[in-house]
């Protein structure tokens, strides 16, 4: 993985000093709350319902075990012993004290971590496919490109005060595992006719109040042009994005208002001007970056049958929680943060520290964070899978539910977030309680539930096969259900099923939806495909039958 040099380390240290000074000035009354807000947000610090919330950057979801242990240390020393992984693959702490935050950031800096630009109207953490570098279908590892973008975006002198937040995602495989179409910019690595790589460029995707999938503005951008082209997009956006209305300020609104062709023409024109002024990315720089992400020294191993004769529970875990690796004899293990009864994406300090031990012993000393709030041990020898399973099971991290109904995305909701209209975690628990039978979950097959406690859509509800959105109706929590959304393969936005349902009825409503699926599905047909084939009507009829 990437390692800081003197430049990186100095920058992070100076950032800590800057924030320490800003916090001091705020506490001394030299900075008003309004003045301090944009400064603290650019360091990931929110003032929340109960306490400040600190969001720590995990660039493209990659953590060394040393970093994971540090997160455990922060959870233990400054918080209440746990943290929460987000859909941006960051970690949030819900209970730090404002006056401790400079010390937390100083601790993080010792392991090459920071919270720079994890909030605010600036370029946010760049995300990538969580199977980067190990997926059999990969064209090229996206992470060196992500790191190049991360550095370019960090404390950018021109683009640090944008109209609104800005999210970039890079994928390196034909299949999109990172929800790239919901990003302000989605970059897909493609191989050109001459064999060299480049990027398909999507722009203007996003969720929130105006959900929309990204539009392609470039079929193929040769790799040396990456930063010059990003600058052109950001510059057009910084100049022309709306600043009069926070709900109309994302780049998607600008792209829509101008029309994608006109927007593209403007970007291309600016890009041609920038080409005259700045050098392209050099071979040496990308070679330097690629070296950081070189594969670990894999052993030459045969594929092993570890399933035959193994306990049924292990077999279920193997089937649902492990994935094919590009190297023979290895597998990728998905660590489930979706144990029934726990808040999705939460992890205790103890789990962090002990998972780090497992990753050091049985994988490559790295842990990946997925955008759907699980973790991945990337390089496990097949012969060690049983030991890894035992270790994870002991930590409560081996729930064999990856890809099933209870592998939900869930935002912190009303329990923590000051933006939320409704709770999300209690709904997740309601669903976990109702659908606790694994045979039933396995029979249902692949279903993605994504849940947000408000329109800001941190829980990506628009692209859930089943989306759940919490709304406030006269002080009561209600939930709007959408069906048929997806963020991978053929992406689509879910369709609203009908009027929202009361808090106590969410799991019951989902049960009715699942009944219709089980009755209507064809042989081997997944939920999403069944919804797309039969349409929303049969589901609507069943759910609202009694009310008519």
């Amino acid at each position: 993985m990437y390692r800081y040099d003197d430049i990186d380390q100095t920058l992070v240290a100076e950032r800590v000093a800057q924030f320490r000074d800003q916090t001091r000035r705020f506490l001394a009354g030299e900075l008003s709350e309004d003045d301090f807000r944009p400064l603290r947000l650019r360091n990931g610090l929110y003032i929340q319902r109960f306490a400040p919330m600190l969001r720590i950057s995990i660039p493209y979801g990659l953590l060394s075990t040393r970093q994971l242990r540090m997160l455990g240390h922060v959870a233990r020393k400054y918080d209440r012993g746990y943290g929460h992984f987000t859909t941006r693959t960051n970690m949030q702490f819900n209970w730090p004290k404002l006056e401790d935050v400079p010390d937390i950031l100083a601790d993080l800096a010792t392991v090459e971590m920071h919270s720079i630009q994890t909030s605010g109207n600036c370029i946010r953490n760049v995300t990538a496919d969580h199977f980067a570098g190990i997926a059999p279908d990969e064209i090229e590892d996206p992470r060196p490109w992500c790191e190049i973008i991360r550095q370019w975006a960090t404390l950018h002198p021109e683009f640090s005060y944008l109209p609104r937040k800005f999210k970039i995602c890079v994928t390196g495989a034909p299949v999109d595992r990172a929800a790239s179409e919901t990003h302000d910019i989605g970059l897909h690595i493609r191989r050109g006719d001459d064999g060299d790589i480049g990027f398909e460029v999507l722009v203007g995707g996003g969720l929130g109040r105006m959900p929309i999938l990204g539009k392609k503005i470039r079929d193929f951008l040769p790799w040396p042009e990456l930063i010059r082209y990003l600058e052109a997009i950001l510059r057009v956006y910084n100049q022309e994005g709306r600043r009069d209305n926070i709900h109309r300020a994302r780049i998607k609104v600008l792209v829509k208002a101008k029309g994608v062709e006109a927007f593209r023409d403007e970007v291309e024109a600016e890009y041609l001007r920038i080409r005259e002024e700045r050098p392209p990315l050099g071979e040496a720089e990308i070679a330097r970056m690629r070296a950081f992400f070189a594969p670990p020294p894999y052993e030459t191993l045969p594929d092993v049958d570890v399933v035959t004769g193994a306990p049924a529970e292990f077999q279920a875990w193997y089937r649902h929680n492990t994935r094919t690796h590009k190297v023979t004899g290895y597998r990728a293990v998905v660590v489930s943060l979706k144990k029934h009864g726990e808040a999705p994406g939460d992890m205790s300090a103890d789990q962090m520290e002990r998972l780090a031990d497992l990753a050091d012993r049985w994988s490559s000393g790295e842990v990946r964070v997925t955008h759907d709030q699980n973790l991945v041990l990337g390089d496990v020898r097949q012969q060690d899978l049983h030991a890894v399973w035992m270790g994870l099971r002991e930590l409560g991290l081996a729930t064999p539910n990856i890809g099933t109904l209870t592998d939900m995305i869930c935002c912190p909701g009303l329990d923590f977030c000051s933006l939320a209209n409704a709770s999300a975690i209690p709904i997740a628990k309601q669903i976990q309680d109702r659908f606790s039978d694994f045979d039933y979950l396995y029979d249902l097959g692949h279903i993605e539930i994504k849940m947000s406690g408000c329109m800001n859509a941190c829980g990506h509800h628009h692209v859930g096969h089943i989306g759940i959105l919490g709304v406030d109706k006269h002080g009561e929590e209600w939930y709007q259900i959408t069906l048929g959304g997806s963020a991978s393969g053929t992406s689509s936005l879910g369709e609203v099923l009908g009027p929202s349902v009361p808090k106590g009825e969410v799991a019951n409503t989902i049960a009715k939806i699942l009944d219709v699926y089980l009755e209507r599905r064809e042989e081997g047909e997944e939920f999403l495909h069944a919804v797309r084939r039969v349409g929303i009507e049969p589901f609507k009829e069943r759910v609202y039958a009694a009310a008519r």
Partner: protein
Amino acid sequence: MRRLVKGRQLADGDSWFYVGTDEGDPPAGAPRVLKLADYLAAREAGEDATRLGVHLVPTDVDVSPLAPHAATLPLVVIEFPSTGDGRGFTQASLLRGRHRYRGELRAHGKGVRADLIFFMARCGFDSFDLAEGEKVETVLAQLERFSVAYQTYPDGVVQPRHRTG
């Protein structure tokens, strides 16, 4: 009363009169700063280039009309109406980088706050009309805030170290 930071210190005074911003009439013979359209018209009318500056507001997205005047312009003032409005960073970058403007580049407005000064300096600003209440020493300290940077930008007042090679 304008408080102008220039050359890493509080300037003694400033003779420029911002037409449409400063109160009253310009003192006789004072050099004037005009809004973009007025500036272009004044130059068209043959006024003395050395006595005229231009004041850009955020909606002056296209700064290229200033390109022909870049060599003779003594002062460009860029308005930052709030700390949230970052359009001035692009205007400055374009003037310095694309149009080779070498005169004084001054940030003005409620957004000229200590914590934005470093970015402003990196985009090529070399003087700052401090927002009300902003302490000079706090502002000056921010110019020393970062000794390193990832991006190559016009800089000038600050000169962070970059990775080489």
